[in-house]
């Protein structure tokens, strides 16, 4: 293993990425609730307050609109704030600032103003949490022009995609798969990364394409393993970016396999899978052997923890969708 390759948990990879950003650019700030001495409720900002001080790693009042609103002001002053929203379900007080101001100010100013703000949001379920701590609201942000929305699935992407998000002059909503925070992976801190908004084939296959991002990529790999035992060759695509979405990569894969199943934790209804299904149907109509199928959450509030296994896509539910697709 080269000296620049480390084996890091996903949360630690984000921590190291933040540290690198703070070290290399004096304009980068980290701000949010409990990101200081505590190091964040998931310890993602652990040690940063100690090393960079409260002027750059800022514990904020408990007011999400205030956090994002002041981050906008700091960005107007030339700073590059990286904001932490403590949990997915707590972003909504800031939704107004994100949608009406953060997303639109660049266009409103005819390009004269740039808002390089990153909003990190731990998202998704599977950790047995109470209400508002397990949601997947990415479609609510992907629907808003002016925002970019990404979600890494592994430690290396978490490290590099965050670097790229911070360097971007556009606001980026950075969805962190909280149930994968403790999953370890190799991170090469010198490897030149590919572009931020491109998908990646993480497993090649010929019979069907599974498209996912964030926490569902690992599940889809497991599904592909299980399907392989039954003699089926599934291709797994890690979309990585929800807006913009790399439709070219999905199209290329579907033209090869003829079948597509999209998997996300977010509710299926009006979810990102719906957009992918519509566009891929349009792009690949004569290649498709089956309708694009979706596996995701139900049109119901995220359930109490004892029921989340029923609600979340799992191996059997995705395999069931694979079977249905292949049965056409």
């Amino acid at each position, binding site marked *: 293993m080269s000296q620049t390759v480390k084996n890091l948990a996903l949360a630690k990879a984000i921590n190291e990425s933040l540290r690198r950003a703070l070290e290399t650019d004096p304009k980068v700030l980290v701000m949010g609730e409990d990101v200081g001495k505590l190091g964040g409720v998931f310890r993602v900002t652990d040690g940063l307050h100690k090393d960079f001080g409260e002027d750059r790693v800022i514990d904020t009042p408990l007011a999400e609109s205030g956090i994002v*609103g*002041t981050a906008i002001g*700091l960005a*107007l*002053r030339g700073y590059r704030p990286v904001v932490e929203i403590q949990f997915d379900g707590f972003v909504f007080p800031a939704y107004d600032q994100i949608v009406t101001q953060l997303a639109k100010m660049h*266009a409103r100013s005819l390009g004269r103003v740039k808002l390089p703000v990153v909003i990190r949001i731990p998202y998704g379920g599977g950790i047995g949490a109470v209400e508002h701590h397990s949601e997947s609201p990415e479609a609510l942000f992907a629907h808003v022009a002016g925002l970019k929305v990404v979600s890494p699935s592994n430690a290396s992407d978490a490290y590099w995609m965050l670097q790229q998000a911070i360097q971007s002059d556009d606001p980026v909503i950075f969805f962190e798969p909280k149930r994968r925070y403790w999953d370890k992976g190799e991170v090469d801190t010198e490897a030149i990364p590919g572009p931020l908004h491109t998908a990646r084939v993480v497993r090649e296959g010929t019979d069907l394409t599974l498209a996912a991002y964030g926490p569902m990529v690992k599940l889809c790999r497991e599904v592909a393993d299980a399907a392989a035992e039954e003699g089926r060759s599934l291709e797994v695509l890690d979309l990585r970016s929800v807006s*913009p979405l790399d439709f070219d990569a999905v199209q290329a894969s579907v033209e090869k396999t003829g079948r597509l199943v999209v998997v996300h934790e977010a509710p299926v209804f009006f979810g990102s899978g719906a957009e992918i299904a519509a566009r891929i149907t349009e792009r690949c109509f004569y290649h498709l052997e089956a309708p694009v199928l979706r596996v995701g959450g139900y049109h119901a509030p995220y359930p109490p923890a004892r029921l989340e296994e029923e609600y979340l896509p799992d191996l059997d539910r995705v395999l069931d969708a694979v079977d249905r697709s292949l049965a056409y």
Partner: protein
Amino acid sequence: MTVESTAARKPRRSAGGKASTTGTKRTTRTTAKKGSETQLVQLLTPEGKRVKNAADAEYASYVDGITADELRALYRDMVLTRRFDAEATSLQRQGELGLWASLLGQEAAQIGSGRATREDDYVFPTYREHGVAWCRGVDPTNLLGMFRGVNNGGWDPNGNNFHLYTIVIGSQALHATGYAMGVAKDGADSAVIAYFGDGASSQGDVSEAFNFAAVYNAPVVFFCQNNQWAISESNEKQTRVPLYQRAQGFGFPGVRVDGNDVLASLAVTRWALDRARRGEGPALIEAFTYRMGAHTTSDDPSRYRHDDERAAWEAKDPILRLRRHLEADGHADEAFFGELEAESEALGRRVREVVRAMPDPDRFAVFENVYADGHALVDEERAQFAAYQASFADSEGV
């Protein structure tokens, strides 16, 4: 310090007659608390007389040495701003603008506070700060693009340190606070001023801005123009306490100033900006004024307020008041007023001509500046739109 009559406060409801466990009888408070009398800083009476009041000496010291030239300049600012505003209202009536939000009646609050700012200060306005824009050197015709519908903000915010108009009520108070936090981090000695109105005082963002500014001791001045009406809703629907008193709960000073008194508005804003620059943190100024016109050209105030209220405020007109002062002290003669009249008409003419000549934006502007670093979907949709547009060329034989 002059004392206005305190608005009648409704008695609190008693605790519903529940028996107290201690057996002592609870009394219902019916009297206003001592010290809740509202203050009002005024340096120029509606009759144009200078007020010398020991209680306001600290504020007054910020305009003590004001010269006749400076007074005439303030008068000119207010007259030209009102003329521009009237022209914009006319242009809306003529169909040249889709909407206009008039500042009529608020000239003193805006010119006084706007002229208190320094070049390196930064201003975050609402959509009604035409007088402040004037003070910052923004060409008034640039304000009209968004009201004509050719853009959503037609000036460079960093050109004059005057941010774009914010339409969502109160959002900019947080932007100003964040900007001020950045100023402090930079070690600069400039200050930031956030404008908003009495309606915005009800928004959570404004309270959050107050709190962030206080917690971080940010060099920001909150300038609330209380023009008495948030479209159709009076102050009674927004607040139970005079707005300036809210500052106390957040831990910084609040001052109510006569917003129709340009001298007092200038003095109090200079005071607040000065202490912000010295590192003493935020302050709230409530400029007590009146929206003489409608909320916007789409509004009809006759449905919710009486003409006699307007008449009472006309007697306190900010421009008339300074004119009386200038005339009484012999600071301005007929020639000055005559020249200003001609300048006003020239401004009106220029605004009219520029607006009428303002071209519609290029249809592809929809796709411009959605992102700073580009976005694949925007590119794709632009190409589709171009192809669709091009399809007409064939059928038209172009």
